[in-house]
């Protein structure tokens, strides 16, 4: 995706009368704990600081507390103790509706968030609620629908789309909101190779424009190839937090979190290489440095 497209997804400049998009907000999570009414403590003291424009992947087993943690950001859950700050707002002092202007959230199951009669109407709903004029709403929706590759089906009922397409409709709806922070819960599940590429391009465009992307994922290839920070969670706590190259060598923590490094990172380790290739390109580069095949 070109730079121009990236700006289309989230314009950086705020000229008079133009579409108002806030970009760049820090997220601070300070010693957050969260217990469900059942008494189960799902988040047990997490502190994180996430800069504007970061691409953060949160990984770990089902039940590790990943979803519970990110739901503190948009007020679906409120910390039992500790605090969460998005920009200058402390989340406990704001309503879910207010927080929705700063944190967009794409659910794992799109059917929990799609409701309109057409793809376009669904994507337009969020920006319209922000009080934008109809031309701005239409433009945002158009750009977001195009970014997820659904222009051809924009006037269909989401019901006629496949699950993987409905997931991309939900993503477009959040992209169109123009929130400074975007949370994606398992964005690549059920996507084919082209769908994963499209989502990766949307993530890149968002972060290039200064917006922060926080994605929960089990897809380590997606994580290694497209994110610059990986947070490994287990038992409601953060075990490791760092660049994928540094995280995917922490065997003890990865074992504890039942996370398996990406295919080529594992392969390089098994071959005894000291590089940590994260993509085919890096892997082949490392192979080339070891001398040509005789």
């Amino acid at each position, binding site marked *: 995706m070109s730079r121009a497209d990236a700006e289309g997804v989230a314009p950086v400049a705020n000229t008079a009368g133009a579409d108002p998009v806030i970009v760049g907000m820090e997220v601070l999570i300070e010693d957050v704990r969260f217990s469900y009414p059942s008494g189960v403590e799902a988040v047990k003291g997490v502190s994180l600081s996430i800069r504007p424009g970061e691409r953060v992947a949160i990984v770990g*087993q089902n039940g590790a507390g990943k979803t519970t943690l990110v739901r503190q950001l948009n007020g679906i859950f409120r910390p039992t103790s500790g605090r969460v700050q998005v920009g200058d707002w402390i989340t406990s002092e704001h309503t879910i509706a207010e927080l929705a202007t700063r944190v967009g959230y794409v659910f794992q199951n799109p059917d929990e968030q799609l409701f309109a009669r057409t793809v376009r109407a669904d994507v337009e709903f969020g920006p319209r609620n922000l009080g934008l004029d109809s031309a701005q709403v239409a433009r945002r929706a158009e750009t977001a629908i195009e970014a997820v590759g659904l222009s051809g089906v924009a006037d269909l009922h989401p019901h006629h789309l496949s699950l993987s397409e409905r997931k991309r409709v939900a993503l477009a709806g959040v992209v169109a909101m123009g929130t400074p922070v975007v949370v994606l819960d398992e964005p690549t599940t059920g996507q084919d190779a082209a769908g994963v590429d499209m989502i990766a391009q949307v993530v890149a465009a968002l972060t290039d424009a200064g917006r922060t992307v926080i994605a929960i994922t089990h897809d380590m290839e997606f994580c290694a190839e497209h994110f610059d920070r990986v947070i490994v969670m287990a038992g409601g706590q953060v075990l490791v937090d760092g660049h994928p190259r540094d995280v995917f060598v922490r065997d003890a923590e990865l074992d504890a979190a039942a996370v398996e490094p990406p295919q080529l990172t594992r392969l390089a380790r098994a071959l005894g290489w000291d590089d940590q290739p994260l993509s085919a390109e890096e892997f082949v580069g490392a192979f080339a440095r070891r001398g040509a095949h005789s």
Partner: protein
Amino acid sequence: MISLTDVSYAYPDAEALTLEHVDLEVERGSIAGIVGASGAGKTTLAKIIAGFIPHADGGELSGTVRVDGRDLSTGSLVDAVSVVGLVIQNPFNQISGAKYTVREEIAFGLENFGTPRDEMQRRVDEVAALLRIEHLLDRSPYALSGGQQQLVAIASMIVLRTPVIVMDEPTAQLDPAGTRMVFDVLSALRETGITIVIFEHKLELLQQHADRLHVVADRSIVLSGAPDDVLADDRLAQWAVGTTRYVTAGRLARERGLLPPEVPLPVSFEQAERVFDRERSVR
């Protein structure tokens, strides 16, 4: 076990065919993996193999669909469900909505087949142990995570012991440990003679567990073969089908003259370990 011959299908009121001239053979007691881009017709194919098309969804089906010796295209849906269990893509939609607990939910199909109560309980316990969901049996099917619902949906099909199980992306919401467990369970079921057709995007697992892979593209099955042959096929990209990162790296190394063309592209971890090991390969 499964034999589709020249099958074409159009949904009711649709102008175009969704599938055209599909041929598919799956042997008894094997795992067939079906791969293909979204929108290629995989879900339609799953419903045809399970008899939901044409019996539930209507539309125009031509050609023959034989499963376990029966012609599903002419039989009834009741015939079909006694032979084939279908695990659909979104587990939330698979849950009956009629039951209060996971135990009752898993037993729902058996109940409909008139299975005696004590046998029903035994089989539910067995399948729950197999998929490690015993701790969920007394919970409401709706109070579960997506991954847990997916395991319950799988359990409710496995428990029926149909000779064929068709699964449409059954592990999409599971973590890697859960996904591996499901594939291990499927491999164990295969050993008991059950035939499994699985629609999946997780290619490394298909490479490890499937006996054959079939590629759906352009409204038909365009390639069938051993997983290693299919995943190394140069045409996958043109059908918008991915492959393992080992193949991608092998192909890139070959393009740059780092691997001679006579070295087969590595498909699995083990093959890649041999191909990329300088110490062993340099002679």
